[in-house]
């Protein structure tokens, strides 16, 4: 059984289950998963619910208060961000800046959009100053941020709150609506009773987290899981309305351009393909969660497609993958319900074809190709053809790749590297 030396949160208690797939996970667990997956985390919710306190506790508990704290304000100036990082005195304090493994951005959506854009770099782990990239942390850096709910119109409770750009949201690997997972009455007693003092200051785990992160990344993905990732990226992007067969090229016209299209009834026009960045975060989260479950006695060696799908429905809701208006109209704004239906829809799609897809991949690896089977994979599944064609072409020259993989994995690796075939390389890495 793997072990994880990260202590539990001491002040902010919240035993509500956030994820309940294979093992119940609460907010404290999700925070640890985000840390070992090196994922930026955003907490959204009503004010006064302890979001900031929670992040401050993370700073002291896991980073010995080495984190940099930025409080966003409507009148915030770009310069202030640089000052936070002591950029002007950088030459002398460079080491300190580089070593800061944790950044807190409090109330991120209180800053106007133009300032929020400056957080892009920080979320990507660096800052840009005088055309220089200054990397944050020493190989390990995460951002934890808080945001208040946007409530539109004149009845808005919080004035001076700005909309958050989709690209900012996309850079948060984990987004949690804390209002959906409020602490229980017993937790509340604990939270009220506990208060912060210097005793809570623990050691800096950033070096340890870096090592764990490297270990987490080694966890392989199953073939089904790879297929799911490809489907989310390419299958969900398919659109028959333009010559590129891509929703991405006309994203601003969707769903109005979909009027009358049969596929709109399947939900096609209300769903956008996730970004590559999101998918990377998803894979990282799933690997980190599986690693974490290993430390809880659940023995799993590989990330299955079910893991990814569950995590997808947990991480997806704030990433604009499902059209908000659609959720408001069909589900009366109930994001969770919409996402359960969406997840089940994807599950059906994959389950229906899973075995056939494996069959076609295996045939291609063996150097065989059946046009009739290929024809089954059209429209949303057409992306598979390209992959199988590329594998087939290699197998035709090199012989049965499946046999080679079983009998001589080194030769298989060599072939994959020679041909620089991403699918074969992915297989080596993950299986």
């Amino acid at each position, binding site marked *: 059984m793997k072990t994880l030396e990260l202590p539990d949160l001491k002040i902010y208690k919240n035993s509500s289950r956030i994820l309940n797939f294979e093992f119940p996970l609460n907010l404290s667990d999700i925070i640890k998963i985000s840390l070992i997956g090196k994922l930026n985390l955003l907490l959204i919710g009503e004010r006064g619910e302890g979001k900031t306190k929670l992040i401050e506790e993370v700073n002291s508990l896991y980073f010995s208060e080495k984190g940099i704290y930025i409080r966003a304000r409507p009148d915030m100036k770009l310069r202030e961000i640089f000052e936070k990082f002591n950029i002007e005195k950088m030459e002398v304090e460079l080491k300190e800046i580089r070593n800061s493994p944790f950044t807190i951005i409090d109330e991120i959506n209180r800053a*106007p959009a*133009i300032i929020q854009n400056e957080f892009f770099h920080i979320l990507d782990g660096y800052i840009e100053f005088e055309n220089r990239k200054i990397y944050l942390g020493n190989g390990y850096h995460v951002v934890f941020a808080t945001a208040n709910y*946007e409530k*539109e119109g004149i009845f*808005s409770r919080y*004035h*001076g*709150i*700005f*909309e958050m750009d989709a690209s900012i949201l996309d850079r948060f690997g984990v987004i949690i609506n804390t209002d959906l997972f409020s602490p229980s009455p017993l937790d509340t007693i604990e939270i009220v009773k506990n208060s912060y003092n210097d005793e809570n200051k623990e050691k800096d785990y950033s070096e340890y987290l870096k090592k764990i992160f490297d270990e987490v990344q080694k966890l392989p993905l199953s073939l089904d899981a790879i297929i799911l990732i490809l489907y989310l990226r390419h299958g969900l992007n398919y659109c028959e309305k333009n010559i590129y067969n891509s929703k991405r090229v006309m994203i601003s016209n969707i*769903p109005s351009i979909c*009027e*009358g*299209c*049969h*596929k*709109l*009834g*399947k*939900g*096609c*026009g*209300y769903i956008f393909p996730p970004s590559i960045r999101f998918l990377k975060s998803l894979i990282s989260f799933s690997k980190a969660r599986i690693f974490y479950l290993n430390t809880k006695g659940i023995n799993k060696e590989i990330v299955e497609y079910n893991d990814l799908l569950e995590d997808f429905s947990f991480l997806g809701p704030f990433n604009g993958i499902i059209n908000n208006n*659609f959720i408001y*109209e*069909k589900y009366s704004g109930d994001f969770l319900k919409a996402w359960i*239906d*969406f997840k*089940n*829809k994807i599950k*059906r799609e994959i389950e229906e074809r899973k075995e056939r897809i494996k069959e076609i991949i295996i045939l291609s690896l063996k150097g065989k190709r059946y046009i009739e089977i290929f024809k089954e994979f059209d429209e949303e599944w057409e992306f598979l053809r390209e992959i199988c064609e590329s594998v087939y072409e290699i197998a035709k020259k090199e012989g049965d790749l499946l046999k080679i993989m079983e009998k001589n994995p080194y030769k298989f690796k060599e072939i994959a590297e020679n041909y620089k075939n991403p699918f074969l390389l992915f297989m080596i890495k993950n299986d």
Partner: protein
Amino acid sequence: MIREIFEKIDKNMEFFGGMLKVFEIEENEIRAEISLKDWKISIEIGKNLKNKENLIRDVILHEVAHWKICPKDIINHYNLFEIVYKYFKGEDANYILNAFEDLIVNTYNKFENPPYEGQKEFFKIQISKNISKFYKFFVILNLYLWDEKESIKEFFKDFNLNKKEDFEILRDIEEILKSWNLPSNPHQKISYIKNSSNWKKLLIKFLEKCKKYFDFIKIPLSGFESTFEKESKKGENIEKYLIYKLKKGKIPDFLSKFEFLDIYYKINAPLIFVKMIHKEKFEIPLLKYGKEKFDINENSFFEINWKTLFFDPFSPFKNRINFYVNPFNHGIYIKHPFKKSIPDILFILDSSGSMLTPNLNNFPFGEKYHNAILGIYAVLSFLKKIGVAPYIKYSLIQFSSKTISTGWLNYYEIKELKKRIFCPEGSTTKFDVDLLEKTLSENKNEKFILFITDSEIFNFYKIKEKLIQLLSENYTFFFQMGKPGSAYKVLKNKFNYIKVEKSSDLYGKMIEASKNVYL
């Protein structure tokens, strides 16, 4: 309960994008429709029917199957509509087509979503209200397709084969089924009828037989007016269908030549960006100092100066924050003749042979004339876009060996102008300047004239003085396609004379001219 039923069907039929709206009504009725645009199902249901689970379930199933099975989308619907149109016209064609689509949908549901007893209940409700020969024929054909012919008496108590009418119904239905030759195995039957490539064959036989039963009483088939019927009447859907058909190089039979050309040019007229203003030639810019707040109706987002934001209770942005834009550079007009009203518009269009040849890919007009029509449609659409279209008058003078004027038409009579455009003469190039004088004298308003021609007018030297005088009194743009003749040197200094090198540039120049006049 209705929601739960819908959710279940939603999952089973993979109708994730579908939505349901329920309205309660006083009448003892249930009506349902599915929107072809966004696949929203609307149900109107009488209070005392709210607990009829079977009925509600099957009504929803029926509507969802219109999405899932037949017609699936507007393209399929119109493909079938073209066939129906050869046998029935107008509303009747829509009704009959809907009946055919219902047959497919009901048969599918009977076997795929049994017991489908609610549909029977629906038939009974409709029969209790009224009965027509066609509806009887339709219900019995449904029962035959469901392999439930023995239950005919459940619906029509007085059904008797000794009666000529009833006997004929059965005979015709059996003939239809014989020619359809559907597989007896339910699964095979379903896969056959849901295959859209078989619908044409099925429909033709159905149409041949149902003609004699069709009376003028249209009992609602699956609801009140089927959405497919409603949607098919909407211009925008016809346009979508036309785009599809035109890609395939076909003109649907159910449109007249005028309807087809009118829609074709509406679709293909170039898009107009009203905010593009080029007034350099016509005004001296006056720079206004200071800054103006962003107005979503006036400015584009590219004009925003993002550096400063301020509180603005009328801001189009959230949280009442707004930004400044640089002020618009107003100008003093130096050539604009209008002082008061919005000018009326006159198109003078050369329809001589050279404008019409050579033919453009099986199209009735040559490239120059085609581009001139595109230009006129684009200008009409521009006038609509800037909101002046209903307030001005329109006229067209078409000239070849004869000169014809439409007279001055109001906005609701533009069809006459368009009809005239689509009937070019294609002969020599002569111009009747007296007719121009008469047309101009009939309207005292200021006028914007677009003169479009590609060659020299044979009688130009005879009419020169008068033509120049008449055109000079108005705001005229002279569009010269092709090589200009020597006579046009005279015109060059008199009007906004625009040389059009390539005929495909014509519409762009016509729009620019219109912008200069109206904006």
